[in-house]
């Protein structure tokens, strides 16, 4: 009886989802939580478009001569897949969805520092996405997501301008999001929330925001110069009319290598939260994990040349970039070891988000270590532009970032919607994704060393067996992503009431109702303890 009354009370309680209704109340909202939901819907849509392109690619590669499309179409498929997945899914995924939702809540604030700017950045994202979809509908772009000159600026007959404009525009969305987060973390922390009481998620996103703000403008300039060469026929990057094609690559990777860390640093933040919550302990080596984020953000700016080992750059430049690339592996390693050590003598549960986190640990380790192959000069000469590279960065981007995004989404889903999803299905999906992922991408490592090149619409027949294996894995992976889409939507209506803290986790976001009220907290919280202050027993004394 009293339970029913309590439930009725939660339902009639006013929270951010039911305080107002109608399209306008969403499209003009300045609430960071609603903006997070807007982002979630938009990036899920873009993810589906990018995933369709990937599916078609995997079907094409079932046969050496190409199963379904002409090489020209295939080029457009991988280009749109890359552009959408990088700029319209991975970069905004964790920062713009989970970050937007959680940063103010984790630090005890009512909103981000500039709520209107936050909404503006979503609109900018949408405008950028419209350019990309326009490009896609009116014939696509075939340069690959890297837009290498002079192919993009002179030779390609596809819609390079539309795609470049979309990427140029969405960059400003990233910049504004990063700016907002930096100011929010600096100026909006609740009383008592000192820097070393911040959850590690905040540290990672803070480091990410710095990279966003510093790197993205360079991409904008680079793409605008490329577009100018295309339109005005002035030799900026095309040597036939007096430019330098390598300069484009330098500028592009000066942004795009840090962009890799824009995609993976937030994932590391999510993993810290998940590991702590499901082992009910403080993350081992908090300070080491926090500062390694900054080490990564810093070194990220110094390693772009490792994308150009075979581009005709000098031997000495190659060696310097190689050494720095090895250096960037160290802080990532430190993080993995610290997370693993957190599990030691923890109280570890097998909830679905934890399974995603464990999947991340394994796949990220594998992806990171295979990065050492590519940082090593003489091996990179052989592996550059082969499927080994594809496998490596998918282990980081999909095995790492997407796993973390899925884990984070499951972990905070009850907070966002007030509902629980069916845990068995969630665990099943996590396993399916893990298995499908490995089946898809592990064979690609072998393919790469054998000499199968990326961006190949047709390929030598001896590579068929491994390609078929990879495509089979991709279909399992596709099913794995489809299941959560179904049960998460289902849970919004039919899921059990979650209550404020279904996982008994620590953190300010769990101290308020689910879903939270518009202003997040009934009254401003005062922080008196460190992050992850789970009840623990003292260490057993060895005799």
């Amino acid at each position, binding site marked *: 009886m009293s339970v029913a009354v309590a439930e009725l009370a939660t339902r009639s309680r006013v929270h951010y989802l039911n305080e107002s209704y109608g399209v306008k109340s969403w499209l003009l909202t300045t609430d960071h939580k609603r903006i997070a939901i807007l982002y979630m819907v938009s990036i899920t849509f873009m993810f589906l478009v990018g995933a369709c392109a990937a599916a078609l690619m995997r079907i094409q590669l079932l046969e050496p001569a190409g199963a379904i499309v002409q090489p020209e179409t295939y080029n457009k498929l991988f280009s749109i897949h890359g552009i959408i997945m990088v700029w319209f899914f991975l970069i905004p995924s964790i920062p713009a969805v989970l970050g937007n939702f959680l940063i103010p809540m984790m630090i005890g604030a009512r909103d981000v520092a*500039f709520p209107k700017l936050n909404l503006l950045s979503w609109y900018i994202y949408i405008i950028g996405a419209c350019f990309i979809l326009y490009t896609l509908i009116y014939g696509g772009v075939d340069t690959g997501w890297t837009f290498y000159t002079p192919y993009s600026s002179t030779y390609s007959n596809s819609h390079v301008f539309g795609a470049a404009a979309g990427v140029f525009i969405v960059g400003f969305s990233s910049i504004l999001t990063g700016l907002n987060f930096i100011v929010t973390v*600096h100026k909006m922390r609740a009383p008592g929330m000192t820097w070393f009481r911040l959850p590690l998620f905040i540290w990672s996103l803070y480091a990410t925001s710095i990279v966003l*703000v510093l790197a*993205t403008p*360079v991409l904008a300039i680079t793409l605008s110069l490329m577009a100018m060469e295309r339109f005005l026929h002035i030799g900026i990057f095309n040597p036939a009319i*007096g430019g330098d094609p390598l300069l484009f690559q330098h*500028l592009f990777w000066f942004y795009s290598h840090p962009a890799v860390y824009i995609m993976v640093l937030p994932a590391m933040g999510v993993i810290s939260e998940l590991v702590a919550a499901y082992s009910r302990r403080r993350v081992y080596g908090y300070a080491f994990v926090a500062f390694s984020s900054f080490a990564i953000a810093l070194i990220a700016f110094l390693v772009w040349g490792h994308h150009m080992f075979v581009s005709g750059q000098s031997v000495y430049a190659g060696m310097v970039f190689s050494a720095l690339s090895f250096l960037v592996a160290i802080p990532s390693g430190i993080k993995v070891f610290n997370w693993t050590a957190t599990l030691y003598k923890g109280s570890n549960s097998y909830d679905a988000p934890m399974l995603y986190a464990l999947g991340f640990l394994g796949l990220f380790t594998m992806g990171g270590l295979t990065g050492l192959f590519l940082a090593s000069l003489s091996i990179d000469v052989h592996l550059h532009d082969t499927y080994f590279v594809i496998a490596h960065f998918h282990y980081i981007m999909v095995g790492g970032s997407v796993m973390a995004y899925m884990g984070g989404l499951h972990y905070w889903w009850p907070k966002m919607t007030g509902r629980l999803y069916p845990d068995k299905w969630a665990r099943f999906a996590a396993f399916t994704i893990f298995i499908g992922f490995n089946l898809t991408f592990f064979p690609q490592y072998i393919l790469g060393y054998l000499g199968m090149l990326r961006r190949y619409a047709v390929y030598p027949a001896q590579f068929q067996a491994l390609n078929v294996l990879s495509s089979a894995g991709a279909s399992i992976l596709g099913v794995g992503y489809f299941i959560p889409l179904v049960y998460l939507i289902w849970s919004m209506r039919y899921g059990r009431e979650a209550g404020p803290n279904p996982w008994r986790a620590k953190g300010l976001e769990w101290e308020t109702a689910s879903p939270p009220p518009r202003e997040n907290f009934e009254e401003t919280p005062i922080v008196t303890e460190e992050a992850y202050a789970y009840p623990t027993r003292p260490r057993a004394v060895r005799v």
Partner: protein
Amino acid sequence: MSESAITQAGRPILEEHFETLPAQEEARKLGMWVFLITEILFFGGLFATYTVYRELYLPGFTQGSHFIEVKWGAINTAVLIVSSLTMALAIRSVQVGKRKGTTLGLLGITMLLGVVFLCIKFILEWRVDYLHHHVPGINFDYAGPHAAHVKLFFLFYFYMTGLHAIHVIVGIGILLALSYLTWRGRFSPKYYSPIEVAGLYWHFVDIIWIFLFPLLYLIGGR
């Protein structure tokens, strides 16, 4: 939260998600600084590209630089520096609570100088460049030595000064809006962060020009 009661000209000045007015003011200032850092990298990409090509194609860039008038660049530098001074004075005026008219006058002079800058840029420089067939992609005709590199120089000249001019136009727009709010009496010694933040932006635009002037006008080997 008694401070949320502070209103100016009938509107609350403390946004509801901030606890205190100083917190809000500090957030705005920090926000502008972060934005300016982004801007530095934005122009920085261009400066870096310019530097690389100047190194590679020095003769062409020297040649190109001879076609633009140092005179106008120098006058424009002076115009912008004076406008920065009047901007700073406008902030000072609202800080110490001088009459509304003083602040408005100073903002007005700042904007006027911005317009003078743009007039010199567009009418006395760009128009003449156009007449001399020095606009790459639109009207370019130069047959002397290093033609491709002179063209590249002019591309950078127009891109960099054009991007800067867009910033000046945006700055004038912001100052126009702030003048209106000043006229409506929104600002006081207690609350003036929008003007201060706009000032930061204006000075930044000025500093960019201080770099553009020598890069484009002066190091032409004169």
